[in-house]
């Protein structure tokens, strides 16, 4: 039994090591994904192009402009004379945020009558536009506070913001857990479904089924190497997150890895289930793409927040394993949560694993009809 199992694992390792494509997917993809997400998917911005129409041209307006540009977040690229010129800059795409300072800014502002600054942003990129205007508004409010340090407005409600767990709003805190969820799903599920489909395609599966081997052992022998490799991959991504992007693991590392393994099992069960439904590598690939890749990317909360999805998609997201795994990862890594906090999502994953394994077992055809 054990001997057969070892023979299987060995053989599977030969396949993996001999196939450059598989190796590339296995080890190149996680690293590429982390780097791509790390440097592209981010809410932080630097040097946003700003056009300022300064109709006041006084001391105070110049101070405000200096404050805005000194932060490094905004770069003054244009100083058009009027709003029409500013709009032309918007159309050309040279400017993402326009700031219009009215005439006699200093006079009204210091005179206590108050003044109005207009912020205009290019909302063809809505998220970016919102981020820029929020940031600029905040800076202008700060500027106002600085000008009247003692004299608080009597009717103002003071708002104090605190960003728990990620005070600097680092994007990596969100994407590292997401990338791990994505990679584990992709590698475990897609690779296992492909490797089983390949045996079917080449006819070697028939030979295995004709042998006295227990089908469960066949599957176990085939997926074990991928469990190990996926787990190593998860470690690599966590390490990259920690070393390159400073993503911490505040909770128990052992707990995190144990749940990684659980999620891996869910992914493997899905992969086996897919392979029972496909006779060729191509079908397995297509099914993996549709069933695993897209939902994991889009519906897990990794890229788009689940709370802002329509009800039907929110409902579908409940059956996406990655959703629960990302919750667990964030709880352990960022919030330092312990076992009690993640019991429910972990329970859901455990249930999913059993259901999927049972379905895979039922569908795995030892005998053709």
């Amino acid at each position: 039994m054990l001997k057969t199992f070892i023979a299987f694992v060995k053989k599977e390792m030969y396949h993996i090591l001999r196939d450059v494509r598989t190796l590339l997917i296995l080890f190149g993809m996680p690293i590429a994904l982390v780097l791509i997400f790390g440097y592209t998917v981010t809410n932080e911005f630097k040097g946003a192009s700003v056009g300022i129409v300064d109709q006041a041209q006084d001391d105070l307006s110049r101070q405000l402009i200096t404050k805005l540009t000194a932060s490094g977040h905004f770069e003054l690229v244009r100083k058009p004379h009027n709003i029409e010129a500013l709009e032309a800059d918007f159309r050309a795409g040279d400017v993402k945020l326009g700031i219009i300072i009215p005439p006699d800014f200093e006079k009204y502002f210091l005179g206590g009558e108050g003044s109005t600054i207009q912020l205009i942003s290019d909302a063809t990129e809505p998220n970016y536009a919102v981020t820029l205007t929020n940031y600029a508004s905040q800076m202008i409010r700060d500027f106002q506070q600085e000008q009247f340090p003692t004299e608080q407005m009597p009717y103002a409600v003071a708002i104090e913001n605190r960003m728990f767990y990620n005070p600097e709003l680092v994007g990596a805190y969100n994407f590292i857990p997401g990338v791990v969820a994505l990679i584990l799903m992709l590698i475990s599920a897609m690779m296992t479904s492909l490797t089983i489909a390949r045996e079917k395609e080449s006819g070697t599966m028939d030979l295995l089924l004709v042998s006295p081997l227990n089908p469960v052992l066949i599957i176990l022998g085939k997926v074990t190497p991928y469990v190990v490799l996926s787990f190593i991959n998860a470690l690599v991504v966590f390490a990259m997150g920690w070393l390159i992007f400073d993503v911490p693991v505040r909770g128990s590392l052992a707990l995190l890895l144990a749940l990684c393994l659980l999620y891996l099992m869910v992914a493997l069960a899905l992969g086996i289930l897919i392979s029972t439904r496909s006779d060729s590598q191509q079908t397995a690939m297509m099914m993996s793409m549709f069933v695993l890749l897209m939902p994991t990317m889009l519906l897990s909360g990794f890229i788009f927040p689940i709370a802002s999805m329509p009800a039907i998609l929110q409902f579908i997201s409940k059956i996406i394993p990655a959703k629960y795994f990302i919750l667990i990862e964030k709880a352990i890594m960022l919030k330092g949560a312990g076992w009690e906090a993640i019991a429910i999502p972990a329970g859901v994953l455990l249930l999913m694993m059993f259901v999927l394994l049972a379905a895979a077992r039922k569908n795995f055809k030892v005998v053709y009809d």
Partner: protein
Amino acid sequence: MKNEYAIQAIDLTKKFGDFTAVDAISFDVEKGEIFGFLGANGAGKTTAIKMLIGLSKPSSGQATIAGYDVYSQTELIKEHIGYMSQKFSLYEDLTVLQNIRFYGGVYGLSRKRIKEKSAEIIERLNLEANARKVVADLPLGWKQRLAFAVASVHDPAIIFLDEPTGGVDPATRRQFWEMIYETASRGVTIFVTTHYMDEAEYCDRISIMVDGKIEALGKPGALKSQFEASHMEEVFLKLARG
């Protein structure tokens, strides 16, 4: 009585919906016999062989393999048979030795036995120079002989060969058949399907399948005289025309 035959089939039938792929075939194969299972492509040979080796459940009829029932004792059957499919089922990206070792492992052979078997197969096939080459680099004829050797790595009592010599020239087929003879001379039963009529002459007995039915069964010589033919091709053509 049960163990008298290596293979016994009685009215074995396989239906896919309305289509009857194998229609009530009956035959016996004696121990140590080379039994040729002939028919054109699509005559139902592969479906029949899959029922015999436990890859496919018969719709009706009975069959025993090495005395074991195909419905209830498939696990026991599997221990006593070897199988080589038309795709000759080797891992193309593994070396000759890795393939032999893997299948040895699948059948639970001891490490020592696997070593012996590997050496024996390599010597028998003159593969000494190529033992560490990946199978994909071997010529087709060699792959087929290796596949046959691998299918019998666990010394089964019966070996099923499904179109083992597809796509190679008659000289290479001849080499393959020498291996079959050698194996059969050790008392192993060979069940072989083919659509090459020249191969039929090599068998002890043959059956000819047309549209899911066995239309003729007997020794090649007897069949030739029965159908007044000078060679098997002619017998086959007469049968196919009805």
